[in-house]
């Protein structure tokens, strides 16, 4: 189970609540970031059209001047650092499959609630199949 054959002694969380909290923090930050980023990109509009109209610089400017985009990036960065933190205290074989697969399902729920996306049976099915598949691959 343990892969900690490296230099420094690792502080591995043995308390299941601490482990769940670390993974939960990754999933929560990542879902918030994904939803905010998706909302930002929808409000900016089709990047291909913007690029056709005002060039690559215009498209980059449209993205980096959006406050919503930066709030999304902030949470995605938070998710990244909490993933690094979780990887430092938990085994990769637990963190990687758990966070990657849970994020797919929480994003489907958040997309439906906050982005009002039409999450039909096809998309629920895809989210669940991919969730199990990612879990199996990363396990």
């Amino acid at each position, binding site marked *: 189970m343990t*892969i*900690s054959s*490296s*230099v*420094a*002694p*690792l*502080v591995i969380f043995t308390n299941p609540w601490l482990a769940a909290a670390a993974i939960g923090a990754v999933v929560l930050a990542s879902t918030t970031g*994904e*939803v905010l*980023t*998706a909302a930002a*990109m*929808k*409000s*900016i*509009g*089709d*990047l*291909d*059209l*913007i690029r056709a*109209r005002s060039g690559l610089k215009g498209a980059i400017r*449209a*993205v980096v001047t*959006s406050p919503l985009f930066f709030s999304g990036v902030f949470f995605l960065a938070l998710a990244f*650092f909490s993933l*690094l*933190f979780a*990887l*430092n*205290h938990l085994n*990769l074989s637990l963190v990687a499959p758990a966070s990657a697969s849970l994020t*797919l399902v929480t*994003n*489907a729920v958040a*997309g*439906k609630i906050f*982005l*009002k*996306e*039409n*999450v*039909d049976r*096809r*998309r629920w*099915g*895809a*989210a*669940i*199949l*991919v969730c*199990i*598949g*990612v*879990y*199996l*691959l990363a*396990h």
Partner: protein
Amino acid sequence: MTAIPSISLTHPGSLIVAVFTPWIAAGIALLIGFFASYLTALSWADLTFVLPATAAGNVIVELLSKFWLHEAISFERWAGVVLITLGVSFVAQGPALTERPVSAAKGPLPDEAVASEGPPR
């Protein structure tokens, strides 16, 4: 990450040091390319469409490790590959974007009106 000394919440600076480790830095450079493509996809497709679709990358990694690195792929992993492929083909059959009334503009940006007239893809 497990090659780096344990990071604790009392020394957040050690996280910054981790970012400049060569392997992590190279990973970040590639992630920037991923992110640019990902944002472009999100600008014309739903999050619940893009996210399962990008999971196809896992399948590519698996096939590369099988045929390029000649790694042994366990039955569990092949099952994962099949499930992801099924899931991606599921979502790809449907529309990429939720249909909305034309006046449902919600962004304050002036580009919005022009951009939303584009053909749905």
